[in-house]
């Protein structure tokens, strides 16, 4: 009997596998009906979808292969600032700029993975190295004022005159991005790569012995996830029209992404979406209690990780799985057809 979502489901037909993504996307697409009138609210909604994208990318890196990258913000910043500078300063068409900037982020992430993998760095050390990268990048943004505008930030002209500058349209772009990312993640889970990733997380040594090239897979995951994060950052830069070091700082991005993923369920498909959604709602609700913000966040984190260590999605799925088994055990079964009588034909 198939167990909860973390076990491979390569056998599931494609329709069933991708259905949750379609449903999620369809439901989310309805949001502008409710909030489309308010620029502020759409900003919040877009922010939520943006972070969902970041978190999916982070999930590819951390959820799939256990590499604790504490530089999500920096990777997004590489995409955002990179694309902004390329398009505004060097006149490169916006789409191409975004692609190039995302590639830069992918390369950076891949390099970090490669370093971590070649030196067999554990979780903490990978975290520290990526943190060093993250903080250095932030300092670089602040220091190179002539290029990045320093602390005051950078106005991003390219794209502001397209539909990206509108109120509701960017939402659909980001939603499309998230749906695409989810599809990529799902495809990854179902592929040979996904199987390798899971084996890796379960038991690295056994995976290695089974022929899984742990190093290569980690670098692939690092590169892919980083590229996803970079692209989201680039898109954000052009749709928002203004970026500053704060937009991509560790405190503003990484901390949130980690909490969102851990809440939603590390390694699960919809975990990032659930995490981002809950956080966005929480953030809006907390707005009125601004002074207690940090205290509330801290308390939420504590309660969260003490009670739901695996995250919402896996816990819910496990619960649903248990319910299903209980239900099946209760229902009286139709009597099984009697086995066909074996006839032995004499030779």
């Amino acid at each position, binding site marked *: 009997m198939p167990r909860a979502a973390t076990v491979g489901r390569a056998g599931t037909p494609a329709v069933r596998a991708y259905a949750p993504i379609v449903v999620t996307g369809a439901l989310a697409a309805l949001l502008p009906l409710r909030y489309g009138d308010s620029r502020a609210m759409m900003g919040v909604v877009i922010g939520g979808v943006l972070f969902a994208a970041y978190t999916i990318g982070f999930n590819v890196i951390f959820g799939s292969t*256990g590499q*604790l990258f504490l530089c999500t913000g920096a990777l997004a910043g590489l995409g955002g600032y990179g694309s902004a500078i390329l398009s505004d300063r060097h006149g490169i068409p916006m789409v191409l700029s975004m692609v190039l900037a995302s590639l830069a982020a992918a390369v950076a992430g891949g390099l970090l993975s490669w370093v971590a993998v070649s*030196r067999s760095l554990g*979780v903490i050390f990978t975290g520290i190295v990526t943190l060093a990268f993250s*903080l250095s990048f932030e300092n*670089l943004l602040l220091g190179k004022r002539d290029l990045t505008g320093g602390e005051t930030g950078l106005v991003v002209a390219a794209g502001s005159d397209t539909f990206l500058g509108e109120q509701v349209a960017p939402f659909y772009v980001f939603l499309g991005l998230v749906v695409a990312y989810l599809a990529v993640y799902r495809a990854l889970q179902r592929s040979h790569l996904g199987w390798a990733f899971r084996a890796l997380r379960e038991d690295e040594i056994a995976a290695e012995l089974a022929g899984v090239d742990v190093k290569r897979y980690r670098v692939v995951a690092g590169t892919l996830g980083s590229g996803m994060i970079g692209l989201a950052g680039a898109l954000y830069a052009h749709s928002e029209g203004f970026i500053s070091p704060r937009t991509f700082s560790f405190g503003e991005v990484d901390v949130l992404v*980690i909490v969102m993923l851990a809440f939603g369920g590390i390694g699960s498909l919809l975990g990032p979406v659930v995490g981002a959604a809950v956080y966005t709602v929480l953030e809006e609700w907390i707005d009125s209690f601004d002074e207690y913000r940090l205290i509330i966040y*801290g308390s939420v984190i*504590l309660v969260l990780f003490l009670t739901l260590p695996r995250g919402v999605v896996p816990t819910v799925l496990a619960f649903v799985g248990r319910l299903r088994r209980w239900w099946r055990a209760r229902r009286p079964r139709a009597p099984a057809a009697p086995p066909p009588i074996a006839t032995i034909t004499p030779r």
Partner: protein
Amino acid sequence: MRAVVFDGVVLGLQFGLLGVGLTLVYGLAGVLNLAYGQLAVLGAVVAALRIDAGAPTIAAVLTGLAAAGAVALALDLTLMRPVYRRRGEDRVLLGLLLMLGVAFIIDGVLVWRYPIEALTLRIGGDPVDVLGTRMRTGSLLASAIALGVGAVLVVFLRYATAGKAVRSVIQDEEGAQLCGVSPARVRAFVFALSGVLAALVAVTRSMTSPVTVNAGIDFTILALIVAVVGGLGSVSGAFLAGVLLGVVNTVSAHYIGTYVTTIVLLGAAAVTIVLRPSGLLGAGRE
């Protein structure tokens, strides 16, 4: 140039003290205390409040140290229990996340209740001449304290029975148990000690510049860098790394600039991890 290097050494001793608490806890329990800086700030704020209330400086400082130690002990006895029950990567991750939550809470409480509180210990006296360089009495005293405390710690760990018990848990937890050492007790003791040390660093820092409620995260990051370069789990390593990084800091700040200096320090940590993960000295070595 000599003045700059000397400045660096003096600063470095304080860096070392900062790294000690963090490195001990990590070497001992595999837990990276992300709330370390907040504990330091907590101690400073309590001391400042006592001074405001009219208490004599020394008493106020001791109260601050005690407060930080008490909070740290409370954390170990409560939140850390589920963390210690796990092993390896699981423990590291849960420890990180829970301490992150604690860091937020302490930060939040302090910023909310005492947003403008800052600790400043004015040490009177004219600048003193040491080895041909003028030094403020404040920074001299701070470094002297750091050096003194560091020496006491190293001696304790190396020669005292209780100190050896601490090192034994760092080097081989199971072996320590078989010798009758209770890892849980040792962890509680060291955790509380790290709180006191963190607060002490804040106090010494306040002798040269005010320590505000926002200083927490900077303390934590600096402590992390020092601990990593020195070798997680080694007190002497932390001091050695501290002095080294202190010199790097002042030289870089003097000749290049402050933004780059932070990158340089972070780079030092990253390079150490990549080239020599055990750091300068390595776990349990004193």
